[in-house]
């Protein structure tokens, strides 16, 4: 259905709020030049109307509880409800970050405990939980690399190596930290081309950012060689933890040779994605880098059984975000870890990998889809719809849109960039065999449609709240706010 904007639902005079009275009814004079005179066209509604509006909006949105959500590289696993229950404890919500440490021992302990888990899971020696998201973590990591080299006087190390299959955030983060980004090509297996890497490293190399398994879902089996090459050249090895779900509880980045790791609590550790955030991107480092971490760290004084905020980080890069991190997300992740335990975590990666390979094998050979690179996948798989496009004109985007008609979320499309017409599918461990079978069925049916009746795919979706959305128009004629909409509409510049 159509839900009007909240501005259209507004009626002058309606009230949705209650507020306590001020302590004292004094006149407080606002200097005339600062007093608000410009219009403030906020909507006016009663609480029942606000609730109905957002309830209806929510029903026009697809979440993990709605069905399979195999968005590649996003690890859209089920978010246990116990996480939410614990995160709604007053000891989370009603605690001020500047409270005396003696009054927040619970909060500090939670952060400290989470760090212990993450250290063992990654093979790192110290963690900051400050970064708000994966990219914020990457920036933290590369900033540490920069600080490390500068500290050692190696000012010339201004190149960051990034494979061409990397997440877009990797080069963007490196650039933000002041690095020149050098792209390393992949070989025909879909993994890092060792020769190209050998050629790329030099005394200017600051480090290599790598995801393992990579964005094709393929394990970099030459990882130890890669590490050797980079380390030998004096660079550091950075692990993008977006794909950790593939090796969780089985293999540690630290054992692969990585020096720095960022994790995504909202991916691997089951905290909800919130429609785009909040996430949390803790960064772990090997011992020799721990003096560069952001402040404060959380430390434990065993003698006095006391947790404290530790600002004693001599070469700290400073802060990448205000305060200590997305605490409410941290609480959820720790809850999850305690329930899962050692065996549970290993079960996660094993079944995540099983599910991805099951899907790969079941779909493989279907007309129009091609499987680039090595066949054995980890937690995700990437197909190319290039043959389909060539033969029928149906693109990866069309396939994605048609999937929506079957009540399923689309895969990530057009990523990784090295695969044409990429369909990047990450089922995660929390979907069932029947859901996988149904997904494969749908993709096969779409293939049949593409070759028999391509129009039905090209014009998809048909069964959704809105038909295919015109994003070209959106960029050509930006309408970013309700006020802009009304103005443009009045001027006749838009016809919707």
């Amino acid at each position: 259905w159509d839900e009007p904007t909240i501005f259209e639902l507004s009626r002058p005079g309606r009230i949705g709020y209650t507020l306590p009275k001020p302590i004292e009814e004094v006149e407080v004079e606002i200097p005339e030049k600062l007093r608000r005179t410009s219009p403030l066209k906020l909507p006016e509604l009663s609480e029942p109307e606000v609730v109905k509006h957002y309830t209806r909006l929510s029903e026009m949105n697809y979440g993990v509880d709605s069905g399979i959500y195999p968005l590649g590289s996003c690890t859209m696993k089920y978010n246990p409800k116990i996480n939410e229950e614990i995160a709604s404890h007053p000891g989370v919500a009603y605690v001020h970050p500047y409270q005396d440490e003696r009054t927040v021992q619970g909060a500090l302990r939670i952060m400290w405990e989470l760090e212990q888990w993450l250290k063992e899971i990654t093979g790192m020696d110290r963690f900051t939980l400050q970064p708000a998201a994966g990219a914020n973590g990457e920036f933290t990591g590369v900033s540490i690399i920069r600080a490390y080299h500068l500290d050692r006087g190696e000012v010339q190390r201004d190149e960051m190596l990034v494979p061409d299959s990397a997440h877009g955030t990797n080069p963007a983060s490196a650039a933000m930290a002041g690095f020149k980004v050098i792209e390393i090509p992949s070989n025909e297996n879909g993994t890092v081309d060792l020769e190209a890497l050998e050629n790329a490293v030099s005394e200017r190399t600051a480090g290599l950012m790598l995801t393992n398994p990579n964005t094709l879902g393929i394990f970099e089996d030459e990882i130890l060689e890669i590490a050797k090459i980079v380390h030998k050249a004096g660079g550091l090895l950075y692990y993008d933890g977006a794909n950790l779900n593939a090796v969780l509880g089985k293999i540690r980045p630290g054992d692969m040779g990585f020096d720095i790791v960022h994790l995504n609590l909202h991916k691997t550790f089951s905290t909800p994605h919130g429609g785009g955030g909040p996430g949390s991107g803790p960064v772990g480092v090997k011992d020799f880098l721990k003096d560069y971490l952001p402040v404060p760290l959380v430390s434990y004084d065993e003698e006095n059984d006391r947790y404290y905020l530790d600002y004693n980080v001599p070469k700290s890069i400073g802060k990448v975000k205000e305060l200590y991190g997305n605490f409410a997300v941290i609480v959820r992740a720790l809850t999850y870890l305690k329930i899962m335990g050692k065996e549970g975590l290993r079960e996660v990666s094993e079944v995540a990998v099983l599910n991805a390979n099951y899907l790969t094998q079941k779909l493989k050979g279907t007309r129009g889809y091609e499987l680039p690179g090595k066949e054995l996948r980890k937690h995700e798989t990437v197909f190319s719809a290039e043959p389909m496009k060539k033969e029928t004109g149906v693109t990866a985007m069309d396939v994605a849109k048609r999937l929506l008609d079957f009540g399923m979320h689309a895969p990530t499309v057009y990523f990784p960039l090295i695969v044409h017409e990429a369909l990047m599918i990450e089922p995660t461990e929390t979907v069932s065999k029947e859901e996988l079978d149904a997904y494969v069925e749908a993709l096969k049916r779409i293939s049949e449609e593409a070759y028999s009746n391509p129009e039905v795919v090209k014009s998809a979706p048909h069964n959704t709240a809105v038909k295919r959305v015109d994003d070209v128009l959106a960029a050509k004629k930006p309408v970013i706010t309700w006020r802009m909409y009304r103005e443009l509409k009045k001027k006749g510049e838009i016809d919707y």
Partner: protein
Amino acid sequence: MGRHYIPNSAHKEEMLKEIGFSSIEDLFSDVPKGMVKEFDLPEGKSEYEVFTEMNEILGKNKTVLEMPSFLGAGTYFHYVPAHVKYIIERSEFLTAYTPYQPEISQGMLQALFEYQSMMAELYGLPIVNSSMYDWGTAIAEAALMTVRLHRGKKKRFLIPKALSPEKKAVIRTYTRGADLEIVEVPWDEKGQLDLEKLKEEVKDSAGVYVEMSNFFGLVEENVREIGEIAHEAGAYFVVGADPTMLGVFEAPGELGADIAVGEASYLGSPMNFGGPRAGVFAVRNDRSLIRQMPGRIIGMTKDADGKRAFVMTLQTREQHIRRAKATSNICSNEALVAVAAAIHLATLGPKGLAELGEIILKNTAYLKKRLSEVGEVPFEGLYFKDVPVRFEIPYDVIHERLLERGIHGGYYLGKHFPELGETALFAATETTRKEWVDRLVEALGEIISEAEL
């Protein structure tokens, strides 16, 4: 444990067989020998056990519901109406990700469009993104943006000295890669940004940043003048504002801001020991600014039937397309926090937001009046939320004694602003109760006289 989240745990053999593998280890055959290892981690526990364990740990936190607290300094105890929490806990919002598929994500897209629209009203600037991590990173991104707008030819960015140490630290870390020079402009004897110093420093600056109320809670009186000085010097003017003041105070856009930033989580989100939060980021409707803007932006457009629809737009600025040349590396943002702010704003409306601002002003005034009885407020002027108070005795003594009495005092300023001496920031919001303030002042009186004995 864990199998209760993993349906196919029960079908591993069957599935492996179906795809021609004989064991799970076959699926990891490409992993170098010896790399798979046994982890040194605790066994899993039942949900009930973890529930009680986490409850017990969290019970060790003392909350502001149990203990009157006067902490502010950038984090405030605002009340979040129950329906705001209720709605953002609906799984369709909570468990979705970035709306890459607009046709099944119209709910989140529209909610974020409405967030942008409401923030545009508050800040008086028409282009708003759908959130940054927090206010601090929003300033930092704004600083980087002003440099990009000057094509890197100006690498100087002015900030007030009377700015949150948290924000300063974030700005410095964020701008180090771009080699920015961050210059702090001091306050004058009235606690206001020193305009003379500003004029001295502004030359060759890419941007000037100021907040409508500074770190000490003082309302900045000369925002418009600061903007004029910046613009005259060819610098972009970046204004920070607490959204809860914008029902009564003029919109940054009207005061000359090219870019406005703020903290969205003050509306609709609890303190959460500091996070998650969400940064507001707004700019003038100017193609050059829009092109350099960081973050996700939701736009309205139409669907194939010509019907109104929402979609992520202007993505060519973003990392997943432009990679190393993107305006920012941001990917996951704080969408749900933004939606919470939107729901809260829709609930308040213009009248409620103005009323909220007035209540806070009045409660701050009461706090200031009462605290003046036991200490010295170093600057005259209008205060919003925070009030600095200087004492004759060391603040750590006061802090200890207050805590003994079950009261959490203010934020000690002496560490970052030693020139202010034994001064602490005490804060009020609409949640501050008269009896708390009265108890505080009484306790302070006692503590001071005890110390004087």
